[in-house]
C-alpha cells in the first residue's frame, strides 16, 4: 500500500502494548507454573482444588470488566466521547468471557465436591444472571444501527444492569449458601471450604495479579479492534454513499463448548478439565480477537482502495 487518503493507523502495535503482551504472557506462564508445581495439594479435595486459583481470578476480572463498562457508561453520557463507548463494549466482552470461564470451572469444581454440576446458590445464580444482563446488553447494541444512539443506549443499559446485580445477589442471599467463602469469614460448615496455607495464598494472589495484567492487555487489544471496526464502519458507509456496495469479509467464529461427563472418583480429571476449559476458552477468545483483527485489516485495505479509486 502506498499513500492513502485515510492512513492505516493500526498497522502496528504501539511499543508499550508490545511490552505488555510479553509481560502478561510471561506472567501467565509463571502463574500456571505456580499453580501446578508450587501450590500444595489440598488434603481433602485433592487436585481439583487447584481450579480455585484461576476460578476466583477470572471471577474477579469478569467483575472488573463490568465495573469498567458501567464507569465508561457514565463517562460517555457525561462527555460523549466515542472512546468511552469503545472501551465499554470491550470491557463487557472480556467480562463475559471471564465470567463464563468462572461459571464453567466452578461447575467442574462443584461436580466432585458438591456432587452436582449446579446448585441454586446466591453467587452462582447472581453471576449467571449477570452474564444474561450483559448478553442482553450486546443484543440491544446489535439492534441499533446508528452508532451514536447505540452508544447512548448501551451506556444507559450498562448502568441499569450493573445496579441491578447487587440487588439480585441480595434477593437470592436468603437461601442458605453452600458456596465456600474462602476470603473473609464465612460459614465454616460450607462444603468445599478450606484454609489457605501461605503457599496457597501466594499462588492465589499471584493469580489475581496475572489475570489483572492479562485483562488490561486484552482490553487494550480489544479497544484497538473496536476503534478499527469503527473506522471500517465509517469507511463502509462512505463507500456505500458512493454507491459501491460490495460484500466484505467479516464475522465472528462461533464459540463452541463441549463438556464431557466424567466419573467423580478421581478429582485429577476435574482439575485437568477445569484448566482445559480455562486455557481453551482463553485461546478461543484470543483466536477470535486475531481473526477479527485480520478481517478488519482486510476490510480497511479494500475500503481504502475503493476510496482511492473514487478520488482518482
Amino acid at each position: 500500500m502506498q499513500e492513502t487518503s485515510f492512513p492505516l493507523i493500526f498497522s502496528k502495535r504501539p511499543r508499550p502494548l508490545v511490552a505488555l503482551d510479553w509481560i502478561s504472557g510471561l506472567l501467565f506462564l509463571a502463574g500456571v507454573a505456580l499453580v501446578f508445581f508450587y501450590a500444595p495439594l489440598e488434603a481433602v479435595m485433592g487436585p481439583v482444588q487447584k481450579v480455585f486459583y484461576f476460578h476466583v481470578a477470572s471471577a474477579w476480572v469478569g467483575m472488573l470488566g463490568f465495573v469498567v463498562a458501567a464507569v465508561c457508561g457514565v463517562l460517555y453520557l457525561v462527555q460523549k466521547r466515542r472512546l468511552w463507548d469503545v472501551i465499554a463494549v470491550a470491557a463487557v466482552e472480556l467480562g463475559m468471557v471471564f465470567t463464563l470461564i468462572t461459571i464453567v470451572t466452578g461447575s467442574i469444581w462443584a461436580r466432585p465436591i458438591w456432587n452436582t454440576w449446579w446448585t441454586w446458590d446466591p453467587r452462582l445464580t447472581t453471576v449467571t444472571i449477570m452474564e444474561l444482563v450483559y448478553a442482553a446488553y450486546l443484543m440491544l447494541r446489535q439492534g441499533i444501527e446508528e452508532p451514536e444512539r447505540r452508544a447512548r443506549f448501551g451506556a444507559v443499559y450498562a448502568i441499569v444492569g450493573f445496579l441491578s446485580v447487587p440487588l439480585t445477589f441480595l434477593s437470592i442471599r436468603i437461601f442458605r449458601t453452600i458456596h465456600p467463602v474462602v476470603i473473609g469469614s464465612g460459614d465454616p460448615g460450607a462444603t468445599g471450604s478450606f484454609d489457605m496455607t501461605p503457599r496457597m495464598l501466594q499462588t492465589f494472589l499471584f493469580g489475581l495479579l496475572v489475570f489483572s495484567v492479562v485483562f488490561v492487555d486484552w482490553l487494550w487489544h480489544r479497544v484497538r479492534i473496536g476503534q478499527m471496526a469503527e473506522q471500517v464502519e465509517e469507511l463502509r458507509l462512505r463507500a456505500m454513499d458512493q454507491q459501491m456496495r460490495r460484500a466484505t469479509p467479516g464475522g465472528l467464529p462461533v464459540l463452541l463448548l463441549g463438556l464431557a461427563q466424567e466419573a467423580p472418583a478421581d478429582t485429577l480429571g476435574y482439575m485437568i478439565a477445569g484448566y482445559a476449559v480455562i486455557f481453551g476458552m482463553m485461546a478461543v477468545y484470543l483466536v477470535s480477537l486475531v481473526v477479527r483483527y485480520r478481517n478488519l485489516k482486510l476490510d480497511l485495505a479494500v475500503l481504502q482502495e475503493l476510496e482511492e479509486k473514487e478520488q482518482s
Partner: protein
Amino acid sequence: MSQFLKATYAILWKDLTAERRSRELLSAMLVFALLVIFIFNFALELNIQVRATVTSGVLWVTLAFAGTLGLNRSMAVEKDRGCLDGLLLAPVDRTAIYFGKMLANLVFMLLVAVIVLPIYSILYNTNLLLPGLGLVILLGAYGYVAVGTLLASMAVQARTRDILLPILLFPVVIPLVVAAVKASGGILEGVPLGEILPWLNLLVVYDVLFSAVALMVFDFVVEE
C-alpha cells in the same frame, strides 16, 4: 415544580383517555393474563396442596408477562404514529414525559391486578383480596414499570424491538420479582410481618433506586 406536575398529569391523562376510547391495551393485557393463569392451571396441576405454595409465583409471572405486553405497546404507539417527536418538541422537562408514561403504565398494570385478583380468588376458592397483598402489588408494579418504561423507550427505537424488551427487562427485574413473590407468598400464608419486612425493604430500595436512575438517564434515551 408545578409545571412539571402539570406536564406529567397531561401525559397521564392523554394515555388514559386514549385507552378509555380504544380499550386496545387493557383488553389485550387482561385476556393475556387470564390465558396465562389457565395455562398454569394445567401446567402445574393447581390442586389445593400445590396452590398454597405457588399462588404468589403464578400471580407475579402473570402480572410480569401482561406488564411486558403493555409496556411494549404503550411506547410502540408513540413511536409509530410519530407522537414521540411531538412530545419531545413540547417545551416541558423531558422527565415529565417519562413520569407521565410510567404512571399510565402503572395504572394499567394495577387495573389488570384489580381484575385478575378477584377472578383468581373465585376460580381457586382462595381469598387474595388482602390489604397487605395490595401493598406488595403496588410496590412491585411500581418498580416494574419504573424500569420497564425506561427500557421500553430504548427497545422501541431498536430494530428488534418486540423481542428485545423482555430480554432487556427480565434479567434486571429478577430481584424485584423474587422479592415480590416472597413477600406475597408470606402474606398469603399469614407469616408474621417481621419475616416479610426484609422483602418489603428490598422492594422499596429497588423502587427508589431505579426511579432515581431512570429520572437521571431518561434524557439520554430520547435525546435526538
